[in-house]
């Protein structure tokens, strides 16, 4: 009968309409609520974003001391910078003067513009800190060893691109700070000329001049440079970093997850596995075999395999937690302190002191003695040294343990003291007694270029590291010593450059002692 049929169809329609939200969710996640080991597995590999993770995670990886969440913190900071950066692009105009005005508009006129800008700044800073700490974590737990050597290299690439993003972003506001920091940066890129000049080669072979020209697109920091930096900052480097991150994460899985000590399982059984496994629903509705994918019955049913737990929720909640903490930190910092904006860039009056972003101030401190060694030579040595670590240290002792390996924590502690002490003494001596040119006014330039306090520091560190290799008969011990020393030296030089250098790069105990004019 027609009327009843009509009535049924209508009712069905209403029922369908009512169930739309549930149905949409169901079709999005396809495999239902993740409340059994099996559905938790399908939840992970049925989702394009989540399936970068493996379905189950080793309990060792979830101890917070294993990673301290630093890698996820780096990604989180990047994502925040990505979102806020795209929002900034609505108003930002990459032309001199217009750029400065548009940042001013963002800061003072655009609704929530200041917050977005602050968030972008702070997330960029947090990203740099997180990336450096993440690298230190990977180093100290010897996570770079076989089979993770290549992922360590990818990590170095990520560090370089992160610093590149910050450096290119620093110019965009086109204020005095930006203009002079980039002038100095571009001239550091040109500093191989110090060597070619001293050897009278510059007319034939000028890699320094070429680098600067490619970076600036002109012989001074102007509209061409701004366009280039903008392009690098919003397109090329973000794409490069995204690609590198993709490989980084993929390799983590292929290399067998997080590094863990050989006796991780023995160390873990101190705590019963049961206390971590169940989260939503204790008993699986059905029984499944290994990896919780294959149906069947076996003795292992209902228990995690090899000390693993389902990634959903154990890993994902931890990751989400780190994202929230990062976001919270960025928000708090953004509300507390505004991104700086000085006067419009003025090419005839340098900002005094002209300081780069803080993480480059250690370099700037070395550069203030000689540009090539401090700005190009030593950074290159450090990067090459970092890249070589996994190929030189082929030992196995201490893998996956903090400060693992011969020497261990006592060696790291001693290296930290030495690494802090030597640059402090060196800087104090140089600040008190002057440097080469003050002692020998007619010294050849090549010597000034080559012998930077940084060079001496590097030599002392390297000798100490060699001594450690012999003393402990272990490359790992040498690496522990060297890495710790460089980290400490970086901190000392950065602090001196940030807090103790004033106008004319003169040493001051505090900015309140700076001459006023």
């Amino acid at each position, binding site marked *: 009968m027609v009327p009843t049929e009509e009535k049924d169809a209508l009712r069905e329609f209403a029922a369908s309409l009512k169930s739309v939200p549930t149905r949409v969710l169901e079709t999005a996640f396809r495999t239902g609520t993740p409340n059994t080991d099996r559905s938790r597995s399908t939840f992970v590999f049925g989702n394009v974003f989540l399936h970068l993770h493996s379905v189950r995670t080793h309990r060792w990886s979830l101890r917070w001391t294993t990673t301290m969440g630093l890698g996820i913190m780096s990604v989180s900071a990047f994502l925040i910078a990505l979102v806020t950066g795209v929002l900034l692009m609505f108003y930002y105009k990459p032309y001199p003067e217009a750029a400065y005005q548009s940042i001013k508009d963002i800061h003072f006129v655009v609704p929530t513009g200041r917050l977005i800008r602050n968030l972008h700044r702070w997330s960029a800073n947090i990203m740099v800190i997180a990336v450096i700490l993440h690298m230190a974590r990977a180093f100290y737990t010897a996570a770079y060893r076989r089979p993770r050597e290549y992922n360590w290299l990818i990590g170095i690439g990520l560090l370089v691109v992160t610093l590149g993003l910050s450096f290119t972003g620093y110019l965009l506001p086109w204020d005095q700070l930006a203009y002079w920091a980039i002038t100095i940066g571009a001239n550091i890129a040109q500093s191989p000329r110090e060597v070619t000049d001293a050897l009278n080669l510059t007319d034939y072979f000028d890699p320094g001049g070429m680098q600067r020209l490619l970076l600036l697109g*002109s*012989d001074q920091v*102007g509209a061409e440079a701004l366009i280039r930096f903008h392009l690098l900052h919003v397109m090329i480097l973000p794409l490069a970093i995204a690609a590198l991150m993709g490989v980084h994460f993929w390799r983590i899985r292929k290399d067998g997850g997080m590094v863990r000590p050989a006796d991780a399982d023995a160390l873990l059984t101190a705590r019963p596995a049961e206390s971590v496994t169940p989260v939503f629903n204790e008993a699986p509705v059905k029984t499944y075999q290994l990896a919780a994918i294959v149906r069947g019955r076996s003795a292992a049913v209902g228990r995690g395999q090899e000390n693993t737990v389902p990634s959903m929720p154990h890993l994902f909640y931890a990751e989400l937690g780190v994202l929230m903490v990062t976001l919270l930190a960025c928000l708090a910092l953004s509300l507390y302190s505004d991104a700086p904006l000085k006067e419009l860039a003025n090419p005839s009056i340098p900002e005094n002191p002209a300081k780069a972003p803080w993480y480059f101030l250690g370099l700037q401190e070395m550069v*203030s003695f000689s540009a090539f060694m401090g700005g190009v030579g030593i950074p290159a040595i450090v990067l090459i040294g970092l890249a070589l670590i996994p190929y030189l240290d082929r030992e196995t002792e201490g893998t996956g343990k903090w400060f693992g390996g011969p020497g261990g924590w006592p060696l790291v502690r001693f290296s930290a003291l030495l690494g802090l002490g030597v640059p402090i003494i060196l800087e104090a001596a140089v600040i008190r007694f002057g440097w080469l040119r003050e002692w020998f006014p007619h010294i050849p*330039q090549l010597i*000034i270029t080559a012998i930077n306090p940084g060079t001496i520091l590097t030599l002392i560190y390297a000798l100490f590291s060699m001594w450690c290799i012999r003393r402990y008969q272990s490359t790992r011990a040498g690496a522990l010593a060297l890495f710790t020393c460089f980290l400490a030296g970086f901190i000392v030089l950065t602090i001196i450059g940030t807090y103790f250098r004033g106008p004319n*790069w003169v040493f001051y105990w505090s900015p309140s002692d700076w001459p006023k004019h």
Partner: protein
Amino acid sequence: MTTTPAASRSRLDPEPVPRRDWLGLSSLWAAAGALLFGVTGMLKLPKAAVLASPSKKFKVTLPESLAAGEAFVPPGRAVAIYKDAQGVYAVSSICTHLGCVVKPNAEGFECPCHGSRFAANGEVTKGPAPRPLPWLKVTVAGGAITVDEATTVPQGTKVA
């Protein structure tokens, strides 16, 4: 029955490349070569043939009151111009260290960025600067003085 070459080969030996594959491979390599050639040419793209920078030559009139050995810095230019008994001369005031603009003072010049000091003739006296400040080409025609920032002249060149 004679054994065919195929049968006498070990199964571990590589297969001989058939003619068709050879043709395919060589055209592939030819295409790759052409692409590489083209891309190499395009590598010049980021290096502009003409630099977009303002003119390096400019005219100045020195103030009447300019004392011998006192620097005159034209607004917007990083050049210090002097006039003494032997004539007019110009010294670049772009620091040879990392490009900050140096300030003329009583002894010569000082750089605000990393503390380089220069004597009045441009020689480095202190700090990290690797080269002396270059002297720039000055031409005097009638009363008009032209400075060319792009051309350096030997130290001590003064134009009457």
